[in-house]
Structure formats: structure tokens, C-alpha cells
């Protein structure tokens, strides 16, 4: 025993510098830790933004015959921006982007929530069903575009099924300009409603059981429980799910490209496809840069406002976690007490 303490003392003895928690050394470690990340962020945000701002003021492109460094020869100030803001195709693409985002997120939200309610109560094989709904999320978006491309064919299974079940004539899902945009949305909904479902399922499962039971005992109907308890309690989760899905839906590209390439005409062209077309098909790189800058500014503004709920939820989950831990501690203590008491009595 004594030898052990001696040994301990001996180990502590060398007058090493004390670790300075929170001191200067720590700060330098912290800076070193995040530096590569900040560099990468600069490469993926500031650097392209700088290029885009520069090129956005020119009408330069690969067909102009000069290289990147001489793009200034085609300087035209805000003409590119002006063109974008006065082009119908740009505004139509914006409008479609918003439409796709709103419709997809709304349907995914409702579908996901409904599914979560359906699967909330445990039953045999629930785990399997949950796994099953995971699969669409795992499909490569381009692949899901391809799959629906097959399904939507005029002679494809969807039209055949409609004919067999309802006797409805074949619908031109991808070639009809009025229908195509909805066909495109279905793909995103198929792929991402499961995410909403998963988020809500874990949210619903975490609802405090006693409070839900209390509401039932007080006679609250299903709708009352939803309105007064489930939705208010899940508000942070619902918000996060909505925001994250909206961010992703705003950016859809792969599935649309494989389904319609923006067509027919430009009936399914959202902002991503519009940018892609201007870049690769029309090779108007100067103009594409102007549009990209407009989109970046727009997204930054919206993003600043949209990210706050996530920030709050982060803090709240932390708070909740500590709260839950406290409750668990109290419960554990109680159990121990009870056990001791029970033992004492027997």
C-alpha cells in the first residue's frame, strides 16, 4: 500500500509543466484542428465564389477562344445579372424550384407523419417494415430517376396498371408538359418521404408515455392528442425535418436529369438544371456565373434564417438530455431505495 503511494508520488514528481486547460497552448491546438477544415471550406465556397463573381461580370466562355485569365476582355459589368433577372426562363426555373420544393416537402411531411403514426404501435414484423421503408433512401438518386423513367414509359407498368385497374388510357407521364413536373416530384417523394417517416417515428417513440396516457384518460381524442401534445412536443423535430428536406429538395438535379433532362421543352427545368444547361449545352459560362451568384446570395439569405431552428434544437436536445439523465438518476435512486426497503422487510 505504502509502496504504491510512493510509486504514485514518484510518477508525479518530475516537474513537468502542468497542463494548462483552456490556456494559450489549448487555443493553438484548437486553431490547428480546424485550420484544414477552414481551408477546405474556403476552397469550396470562397474560392468558387470569387471566380464566379469575376466571370459573372464577363460574357466569357469556352467558345470565346481566350483562356480563363483573359476573360476580362469580355467584361460587361452587370449585363449578365440584368439578363438573368429579365429572362423568363430564369424566373420560370426559379418558380419551378419553389413549386417542387413546397409540394415535395409538404407531401413528404404528411406521408411521413402518417406512416409514423401507422407504425407507432408495435406489431410483429414492424422492424422489417421499417427497414423496408429505409431502402428508397439508400437508392442512388440517379438510379431512382432511371427506375421511374422505366415505370413512366408509355408502354410501361404504370400505364398498364392504370388500364387494368381503372381502364384509364395511357398517360404521357414524361412528355406532357403539364404532367411531367408532377411525375418528377413523385420520385423525390418516393425517395425521401421515408426519411421524414424515420425522423417522425423516432420522435413519436420518444414522446413521454405517461403524458400521452394522461391525455387519453382525460378523454382526449386522437386529434386532440395530436394538436395539444404530439405536434407541440415534436415541434423542434418537425421543423428540422422540414428545413433539411427543403434544403435538399431545392437542389434536386439527378433524378430530373435522368427522367426528362428538364424537358419537354423546359417544363421540368428547375434552377439546378437551368444552370447546368447554360453551362454545358449553351457554354455561356459568364452568364451561368451571374446566375450562380444570384442563387448563392439567395440561398445564403434564406439559409441564415432557416438554420436558426436547427441551432435552437441543438441546444434544446442538449438541455433535454441532461434533464432526462436527471430523471433517470432520480428513478434509479428510487429503485435502490425500494429494493433496500423491500429487503429490510423480508
Amino acid at each position, binding site marked *: 500500500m505504502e509502496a504504491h503511494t510512493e510509486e504514485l508520488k514518484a510518477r508525479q514528481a518530475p516537474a513537468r509543466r502542468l497542463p494548462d*486547460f483552456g490556456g494559450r497552448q489549448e487555443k493553438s491546438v484548437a486553431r490547428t484542428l480546424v485550420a484544414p477544415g477552414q481551408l477546405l471550406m474556403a476552397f*469550396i465556397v470562397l474560392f468558387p465564389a470569387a471566380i464566379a463573381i469575376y466571370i459573372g461580370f464577363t460574357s466569357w466562355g469556352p467558345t470565346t477562344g481566350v483562356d480563363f485569365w483573359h476573360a476580362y476582355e469580355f467584361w460587361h459589368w452587370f449585363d449578365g445579372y440584368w439578363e438573368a433577372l429579365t429572362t423568363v426562363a430564369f424566373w420560370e426555373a426559379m418558380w419551378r424550384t419553389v413549386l417542387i420544393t413546397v409540394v415535395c416537402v409538404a407531401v413528404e411531411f404528411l406521408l411521413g407523419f402518417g406512416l409514423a403514426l401507422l407504425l407507432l404501435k408495435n406489431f410483429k414484423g414492424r422492424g422489417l417494415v421499417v427497414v423496408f421503408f429505409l431502402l428508397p433512401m439508400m437508392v442512388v438518386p440517379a438510379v431512382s430517376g432511371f427506375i421511374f423513367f422505366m415505370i413512366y414509359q408509355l408502354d410501361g407498368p404504370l400505364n398498364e396498371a392504370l388500364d387494368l385497374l381503372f381502364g384509364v388510357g395511357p398517360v404521357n407521364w414524361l412528355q406532357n408538359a403539364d404532367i411531367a413536373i408532377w411525375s418528377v416530384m413523385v420520385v423525390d417523394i418516393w425517395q425521401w418521404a421515408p426519411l421524414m417517416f424515420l425522423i417522425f417515428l423516432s420522435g413519436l417513440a420518444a414522446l413521454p408515455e405517461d403524458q400521452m396516457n394522461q391525455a387519453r384518460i382525460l378523454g382526449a381524442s386522437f386529434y386532440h392528442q395530436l394538436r395539444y401534445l404530439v405536434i407541440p412536443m415534436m415541434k423542434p423535430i418537425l421543423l428540422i425535418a422540414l428545413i433539411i428536406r427543403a434544403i435538399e429538395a431545392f437542389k434536386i438535379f439527378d433524378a430530373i*436529369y435522368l427522367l426528362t433532362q428538364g424537358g419537354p421543352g423546359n417544363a421540368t427545368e428547375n434552377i439546378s438544371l437551368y444552370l447546368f444547361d447554360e453551362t454545358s449545352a449553351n457554354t455561356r459560362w459568364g452568364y451561368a456565373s451571374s446566375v450562380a451568384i444570384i442563387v448563392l446570395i439567395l440561398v445564403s439569405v434564406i439559409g441564415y434564417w432557416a438554420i436558426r431552428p436547427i441551432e435552437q434544437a441543438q441546444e434544446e436536445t442538449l438541455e433535454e438530455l441532461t434533464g432526462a439523465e436527471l430523471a433517470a438518476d432520480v428513478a434509479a435512486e428510487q429503485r435502490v431505495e425500494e429494493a433496500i426497503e423491500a429487503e429490510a422487510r423480508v
Partner: protein
Amino acid sequence: MAAVEETRTTFVAPPASRTPRWLKPTGRILTIVLIGALFAFPLYWVVTMSFKPLPEWNPPGKVYWWPDNPTLENYEKILGISSGEQSVFATGRSRSAVEFLVNSVVAAIGGTILALIVGIFTAYGIARFRAGGRMLPFQILQLRMFPPIAIIIPLLFFYVEIGLWNKEYFGWFNLGLIVLYGAVTFPFVVWLMRSFFQEVPREISEAAIVDGCTQWGAFFKAVLPQVKGGLAATALFVFILNWSDFLIAKVMTQDNNSTAPVYLQSLQGGASGNEYGLQAALACILIIPPAVFGLLIQRYLVRGLTFGAIKR
């Protein structure tokens, strides 16, 4: 007065509150089965399609709900095992996707490694030292909001200029793609790993430092082993994201330097018409890794896709 009825002397049951029919047992099962079938059908279709011979792909006026003459031919062609000379669309060129799959694997793994290396340190810095200020995590998150195309266009000019565009070193190492993949998935690593690091008590690294480790030693020897599981999940998750990319590869590569999803798209339409069976076989191959990994990290999937905001 409904609220203040006088105390009753005997018990009278009030009317039942109603649960919607679709949530009652029978309706519930039926609804689940119906929605499940709808959600399953696309996958069913692509899997069965991959086993159908050419005449059953999409003949006019007839739909083959099930492969009448199942065949492995599609997979053989896609994997370059047989060249399949009997195709009516045969243009003499090989349909093998092996090269593209190799490109996909290399780019996805390379991007994952880059994102992990950079992201882990950033995440630890943020979680442990609040490095870079309170807003850094949100700046990183905001990065995810930009449509990738808006960022890739300027980088395309840059890549073209420095000769990185469509460039494969050794015929398989696409540095440009790897850097982009790493940069684009880096926010996920930061947010996920941050949430894992936050669960490691500070005392663990402090104890290691008191025992004589440096900050770095404490990180590698004490903290990192604590988040092994989370690290593996993050790696798989980020791999899935990179593997799923289409847009970046579409813009940044061409021809034989593309990845498999881009090749899948190139098989569509064009002179030879749609090659559903071949495409479906490739699609199935593309689905397998994310599906397997996704099921492996099921527990962390929601956390990953919500940037760690929703745990469980």
C-alpha cells in the same frame, strides 16, 4: 353545462373518442400493406428488369410483370464477362461498366477519406474547444444549402484551366473528383462527428493529459477510441453520399473517366435506344453498397441526414 355537471351518484360511461379508421387495427394493416406495396414497386421493377432478356424489356403493348425467361445476361454484359453479340442494338461496342465502377469506387473512397481526415479534426476542435467561434458549425452547415451546381460551375473553369478537368492519374485516380467529393461531404463529417465527440466526457481527454499525454496524444489515444463506432458509421454514411453523386461527375468528367451513375445515364436514349435490362443490372449493382451500408448504420442514418440534430 358540459363542464360543470354536478357530481353523479352513479357511473355513466361518456361516449368514446374516435380514432380515425385508418389507425384502427384492420384499416391500419391494410394501409401499411398498400403504401408498402407502392413504395416497394420501383425496387421490384428494377430488380426484375435486371433479369429480363431483351424482348421483355419494354415491348410495345405488353408488360412483363415478371421475367418469363430470367437470364443473367445483363449482368454478364455489364460486368464485362460476355460481350453479348446477339443484341439487336449491337453497335459492336462493349457494354462493360467495370471501368466506371472502378472510377466510382476510387472517387467515393478517396473523397470519404479526405472528408474524414479533415472533418474529424474540425469536429473535435469545435466540440472540444469551440474553435472557430460559435457560428462555425452553422457556416459549415450552410455550405450544404448551396446547390452544388452553383459551386461547381466556377470550379469547372478552374479545373479546365489547371488541367484537372476529366483528368485521371494512372487511369483510375481522379484527383479532381476526390477533392470535390471530400469538400462536399465534409460538412456531414463535421456535424456527425461533433455530435459523437460531444458525447465523450471531457474528463477522458483531461485524464489522459494529466497522465502525461499531449493534447494530440489525448485525442488519438483517449478520445478517438471512444468514438470508433460513430467514426465507422460516419465513414459509411459519407461513402454512401459520395457513391450517390451524379452531378459533380457529370460536370467534371467525360467518357471513360466518368463514374457509374453517369454511365448509367449515358446508356439512356441515344442512337442505340434504351437498354433497360443492362441499365437495370447496373442500377442494381449501384444500389447494393448503399443498401448494405445503410442497413449497417441504420441507427445513425437519421442522425446523419439531419446533421446530428436528431439523435437515435
